[in-house]
């Protein structure tokens, strides 16, 4: 089929405007960008099909009808776009009510990981700690001293200076624990 000029130009323009807005940090503009992208995509789908008479049997010959399949696809897409837009509007509203901002925030957790040097990759996770394992000062700070000096072997060496160093150290026994 021979393409028209008008559809690609229109699709390109809507996509460009939509992507530009989508890359904004303001949620409102992201939503507007999303709507433009939705329109552009619907148009793209429709533009790849034959134009013609409305696809209603009896009013036109099947050969002259516009292709009904992309129409059916686009029709539901339009309504779904509304549903998703309403959802995004609710997100904007909630974000505004909570923090008086409606921007796409930078993910702080990601920044923290990125700021961690690979050498710190083995720093102890909170999962690796029992409150009972921390000294009083460390408990106050809420962290443990990581690093090679903190493994069980090291602690074993401290507790039993005369013992031959070993890999494992069992916790106190049942009797002592209670």
């Amino acid at each position, binding site marked *: 089929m021979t393409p028209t000029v008008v559809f690609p130009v229109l699709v390109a323009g809507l996509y460009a405007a939509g992507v530009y807005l989508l890359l904004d940090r303001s949620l409102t503009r992201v939503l507007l960008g999303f709507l433009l992208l939705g329109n552009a995509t619907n148009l793209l789908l429709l533009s790849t099909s034959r134009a013609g008479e409305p696809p209603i049997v009896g009013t036109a010959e099947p050969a002259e009808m516009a292709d009904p399949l992309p129409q059916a696809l686009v029709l539901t897409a339009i309504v779904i776009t509304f549903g998703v837009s309403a959802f995004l*509007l609710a997100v904007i509203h909630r974000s505004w009510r909570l923090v008086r901002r409606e921007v796409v925030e930078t993910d702080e957790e990601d920044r923290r*990981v990125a700021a961690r040097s690979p050498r710190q990759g083995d720093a102890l996770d909170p999962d690796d700690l029992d409150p009972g394992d921390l000294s009083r000062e460390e408990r106050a700070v809420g962290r443990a001293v990581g690093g090679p000096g903190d493994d069980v072997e090291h602690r074993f060496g401290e507790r039993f200076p005369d013992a031959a160093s070993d890999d494992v150290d069992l916790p106190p026994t049942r009797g002592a624990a209670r």
Partner: protein
Amino acid sequence: MTVLLLAHLAAALAAPLLVRWWGRQAFLALALVPAASFGWALAQLGTVLDGGEVRDTVPWVPTLELAVELRLDALALTFAALVTGVGALVLLYCARYFEPDEEGTGRFAAELTAFAGSMLGLVLADDVFLLYVFWELTTVFSFLLIGGAGGQVAGRRAASQALVLTTAGGLAMLAGLIMVAQASGSTLLSEIVADPGSGPLLTWGTVLVLLGALTKSAMVPFHFWLPAAMQAPTPVSAYLHAAAMVKAGIYLVARLAPGFADVPGWRPIVLGVGVATMLLGGYRSLRQYDLKLLLAFGTVSQLGFLMTLVGAGSQELATAGLAMVLAHGLFKSTLFLSVGVLDHATGTRDLRELSGLGHRLPWLATAAVLASASMAGLPPFLGFVGKEAAFTGLWEGGVPDRAAAWTVLAGIVLGSVLTVAYTARFLWGAFARKPGLPEAAPAELEHPPGPLFLTAPLVLGVAGLVAGPLSSSIDPLVAAYSETLPVLAEEAEHLALWHGLQPALALSALTLLGGLGLHAARDRVSAAQRRVAVPASANRGYWNLLQGVDRLAVLVTGTTQRGSLPTYLGVILVVVLVLPGVVLLTRAPWPEGWRAWDSPLQGLIAVAVLAAAVMAVRIRSRLSAAIVVGITGYGLGALFVVHGAPDLALTQVLVETITLVAFVLVLRKLPKDVGGRDRPRVRWARGAVALAVGCFMGLAGAVALGARTADPVSEPFPELADVIGHGYNVVNVTLVDIRAWDTFGEISVLVAAATGVASLVYLRGRPGAPERADSDAGAGAGPPRRAPRREWLAATATLDPRRRSVILEVVTRLLFHAVLVLSVYLLFAGHNQPGGGFAGGLVAGLALVLRYLAGGRYELGEAAPVDPGRLLGLGLLIAGGTGATSLVLGEAVFESAYLSGTLPVLGEVSLATALFFDIGVYLVVVGLVLDVLRSLGAELDRQEDEEPAVERAPEEVIAR
């Protein structure tokens, strides 16, 4: 056999309940299950000794040719008896080990019973994949039992270490099993062992299977997980880490040895690793002060010994190996259980704090001494019999290579010397009176053990003593397995207590003397061990490896996850431009010709839409930007008309209107302008990406259209719609009939979106219908909230008079019903003319919008006194019900039927069942709009009424 496994499962499931009812006595009941299995296994002894086997097959996954194939032969019976017998005694022991009201006992009981069942399944499984399933089940239960409730770091670490190592080995084993099964052409162990095949596939598969067995049985260099796993309660150590789970590797090697011992690589790996493990475990055991760790390293050492014997692949060593498996299961669990009793009684396991316990706990000491004698290989214990047979077998050349036989013999003699030494250290440490400590340390026994507590260790210890002299009666069972292996020495030995004066006896004497000598010189040995520092440690290596993985993860995450959504989107879009974009420019077939437009009208509309798009980018005011974006939507609607899509145009225009309303409802709460702009450089970058993506999409669409050669799939749709769907509107019939599944999925999305909106606005659950004017919530100070009921649009009375619009109210009164009728007309006419459920629902929604705008939030309640959630659910139910009904009637899902007839008054009526589907769509769409109006409109109004004093920064201007 299946029944036994199911009984274990049922007992495990019932265990928490039983523990809740009966407390720790529940263990006594649970012990009955493995005890019954033990009895059953012994009852099969006759069949098995006659050379028979017991089989049980239950189909499992026929399509994968998987079946629960269980098989009991001599080897399986030996292990099954050990597993169930020790299991029953350990459960018995648990009934006193735990305090009466200890927390987590129910969970523990369930896990231990389930483990016993998995272990039994493992030794009975004949299918390699079934074996693998049970294998991993034991790993998982071991993880749960080591970690306990997860309250301790050391426990969690030990549990995860054991899990990581044994599942890594297990995965290697799975790959190996698949390769071996491929090589031999069967998945049944019995057939694989009978005819393993040959070739590199078999060799490498065997190496991988061995890797699994070696990790499971804690061989060097994977031995370190076993001592760390001693974090678990003592019954677990006694059962899993002495008698049962760690024997799984031994079992597998013993199972495969008859067919696989001559596979290249088998003997070097098994014998080398086995001897090394035996020596290392014994050496490390001598350094321990914690009795449990001492035993743990002793277990590592003994497992190395067992691996050497069963893996050697000769009849005489296999005989010795199986006897040692039994002996080890008996004495090591006795010793662990004794340590548990000791720990319970004194509150410590540190041998430097214990003294003079021998005469204070005489029964315990008796059990421990019996077991230790067996471990050290003293006559007449079973341990002596096994060790003697091993020495004899190797002396006479139980390994094909003579030099290897001597090396292995030297290794296990040295290992046995260490065994005697650490046995002495254990007995001395636990029970002897030590110089430098008080006569009785600790002075008081906290919990003197009761008779039931001592039963299990005593029974197991005595069993080791009795089995020695009776070893000639164990011999038939052991021989039934070992005779499947070739005799490599001059003559096959049988198990017996006394073989006469032989070199092996001298070796036994040598090991005893050497071990006792080592113990006598313990101070010097200890000093020497301290001087010999070992720089490398397998455990250290393991943690370094894990840390390396962690570091890599941080590096990768830190490099790729920068935390900015626009950056991620930008990266994705640039990838789209670089990969498909380059292909588009270089390889795509360009259209041969272009035409400007289908109709000049399209050009005009396009100019308007493009202008609106440019304005949407430039305008900072939220509301204005929303309106220009709306203009692009209306423009699209016009284009749809030109293109020949009246349904689309109708829907597009309706949706665009409702979207605008929703925008206004939310934007009134936000500042007028969007604040904060990116730096110019970022804006240019965004612009460049956006333009490039736009051009790419436009060109891609044109190329896709130009490349179309096949006929559209929708070619027969008009005929299908008319003949089968009984509708003239092809688009509508496509939606409700031809592609009804698709539409059903899409209305489900609408329901989800509506629920999302409601849950973001109402934080605590969806309330019922919108508030009505006469509800209590409406009563309050200010303008009259209670509306007179008989007046049309009565709720407008609740509005502030300054916010009322007479014209809007009048228009609403005039139009509301007409619009509703129109919506119903569209719904029913849609099958044959433009319209349908989507359009009809949107029109009804617009009517509700009108009521809301004219009369405020109470008017919405008056107009639609229904819960939107119910509406959505009802719609989905009707639409889904249409599909289900045709299924029930024996047709395909969403198959439509057609009825026609003549009714009085109405005349001829025809009805396609697809109409019901469309009614469902209609209800969903109405529900969606109502939900949005109620959430973003009425609820936001209410929130403002109730909290008017939200602080506003002075520069904020709220659009109204």
